[in-house]
């Protein structure tokens, strides 16, 4: 596509490749070292021989220990319990707003788009304290959560709600740009045939937005999975916390055993890395859909 590559001599190509490879190696080192450490004993091996020595023995003990003490499975399900419903709700709600604001002109459509986009850029800390109080005052049946406070505070539903409220902003922005590129004639034809607004949305627009949904879903999955702030400040009981908090727990108990925490880190990183490597194309198009405004 681009003509940027024209006129590169062989020598320059080699220099460039060497430079890019060097940077790639620098980029991989921290991760590779952590991965290697996670298979080594800390006191008997890493500390004695230094982290850059050839490992004496390779072991899975760190993984076993971290799995057990860090309660990785429990925290993983906590995270999934938040991530999946939040993801579905975010895509549903933001596609509805995007549809209404981009396919119809009415007085406040730009206002709503601005409101959502600006809200998404707000620092989380600014809204934290009042949100905490709002959740504390909102009754919520204990039946629907695994706490016994009778309020939204400390429930996973509360975390899901704030994720939905926040991330709907970004997705609305991306989806409305995407929907603007769908020809208006499609909707008009359906209108003449007597299709209601809801049917046009559900049967015409949504199916056409599949690529955008795929892109947003992969992107939002990693964002929600990686969330460090809301899960930690809103969920107060240790066994409720999301997987990203496992490291802090292990850090408290095994502060000196870096290799054990490295094993936990690898396990925590695995799902998002797998999603990224498998769905790289969706991932990157999700980011660029947001930036490459239609």
């Amino acid at each position, binding site marked *: 596509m*681009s*003509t*940027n*590559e024209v006129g590169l001599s062989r020598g320059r190509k080699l220099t*460039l*490749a060497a*430079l*890019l*490879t060097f*940077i790639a190696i620098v980029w991989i*080192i*921290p*991760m590779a070292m952590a991965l290697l450490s996670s298979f080594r004993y800390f006191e008997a091996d890493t*500390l004695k021989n230094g*982290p850059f020595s050839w490992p004496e023995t390779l072991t899975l003990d760190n993984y076993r220990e971290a799995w057990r003490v860090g309660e990785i499975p429990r925290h993983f399900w906590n995270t999934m319990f938040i991530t999946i419903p939040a993801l579905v709700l975010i895509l549903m709600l933001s596609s509805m*707003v995007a549809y*209404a604001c981009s*396919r*119809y*002109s009415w*007085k406040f459509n730009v206002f709503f788009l*601005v409101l959502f*986009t600006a*809200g998404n*850029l*707000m*620092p*989380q*800390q*600014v*809204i*934290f*304290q*009042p*949100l*905490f109080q*709002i959740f504390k005052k909102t009754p919520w049946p204990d039946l629907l959560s695994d706490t016994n406070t009778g309020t939204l505070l400390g429930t996973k539903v509360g975390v899901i709600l704030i994720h*939905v*409220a*926040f991330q*709907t*902003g970004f997705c609305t922005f991306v989806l409305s740009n995407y929907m603007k*590129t769908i020809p208006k004639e499609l909707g008009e034809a359906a209108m003449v045939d007597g299709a*209601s*607004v809801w049917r046009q*949305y559900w049967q015409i627009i949504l199916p056409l937005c599949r690529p955008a949904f795929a892109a947003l879903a992969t992107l939002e999955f990693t964002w929600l999975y990686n969330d*460090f702030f809301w899960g930690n*400040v809103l969920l107060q009981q240790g066994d409720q916390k999301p997987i*990203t908090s496992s490291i802090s727990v292990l850090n408290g108990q095994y502060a000196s055993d*870096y290799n054990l*925490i*490295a094993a936990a*880190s690898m396990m925590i990183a695995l799902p998002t*890395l797998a999603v990224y490597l498998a769905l790289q194309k969706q991932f990157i198009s999700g*980011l*660029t859909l947001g*930036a*490459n*405004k*239609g």
Partner: protein
Amino acid sequence: MSTDIAEAAPPAGRRRRFSQLSRNDKLVLLVMVGVPAFLHIVLVWIPAILTGVLSFMEWDNVTPISSAEFVGFRNYWQIFTIFDNQLFPALFNNMVLIVWLFLCSAVGIGLAYLLDKNLKGTRFYQSTYYFPVVLSVAVVGFIWKSVMFGRETGLLNLIWPGEPIDFVGDQTKIFEIQFPFLDFPLGLSRNFAALLLAMAWRHIGYIMVLYLAGLKSFDPSLREAASIDGCTEWQTFRRVVFPGLKPINVVVAVITVIEALRAYDIVAALSEPRGTEVMGTLVTNSLTGEGGGRVGIGSAYGMVLFLLCIGFIIWYVVNNFREHES
């Protein structure tokens, strides 16, 4: 790329008017916007406004909220003057972060430009530079703390010429600046400098991917024309490509500034022995944990952060939607 399609689409006037719709359809549309908007306003905008209100109150977070007292600008007065002077060091760190992340963005743009030359292995380079972005900050924080920063085992200490340094805890200043309105100097501490490296690891790849997509969509004929006119590669980039990618430049600038201002996660995950604060951690610390119970002060910090951000947010949103409507 997608910009062309938008321009080819019929003008906004041909979008269906709301008033032409049946009552039922209007109701459906109202619900479609109303439900998400309600959630968003109640959980994001109203709390933001309430933080503004709380910043003029004094409240300990324990007694009922009705006991909160209106104290006017006292919280602001305190954080800007007497209150153990945490605000200015944190603001300074945020400013350092803005400058640093802009440098990182420049590197990311440079990498994107190099990758756009379609050398062999471009996909591999791209995935490698980008992968730190998908890691949780908790993981990034730990990896850097153990692999790079550790006193005995850290890589940075192996290449560091002098005495081993505890890069996570060492608050020795690398440089200091004396401001006339403060009676103590502000500076960049060693542990914050170390943190900047970890942030670069994530930021550069992010910007690279964004910019690469922009470059791919850039009209090649403009570039050809420039080189026929005798522009060097640098001149072509400076005068033709870079200005031509203004929408992406705006996005990169906003992401960079906002990320720098609302930085919290990685600072919180990395600096275990506290001492290196940014606005994000300052707000959180005054509201939760040991320093909790200073709701008024914390909210005032929050409002300073909010006011810093909102200018950029408005600039971006106005820029974005004005172009859309034209």
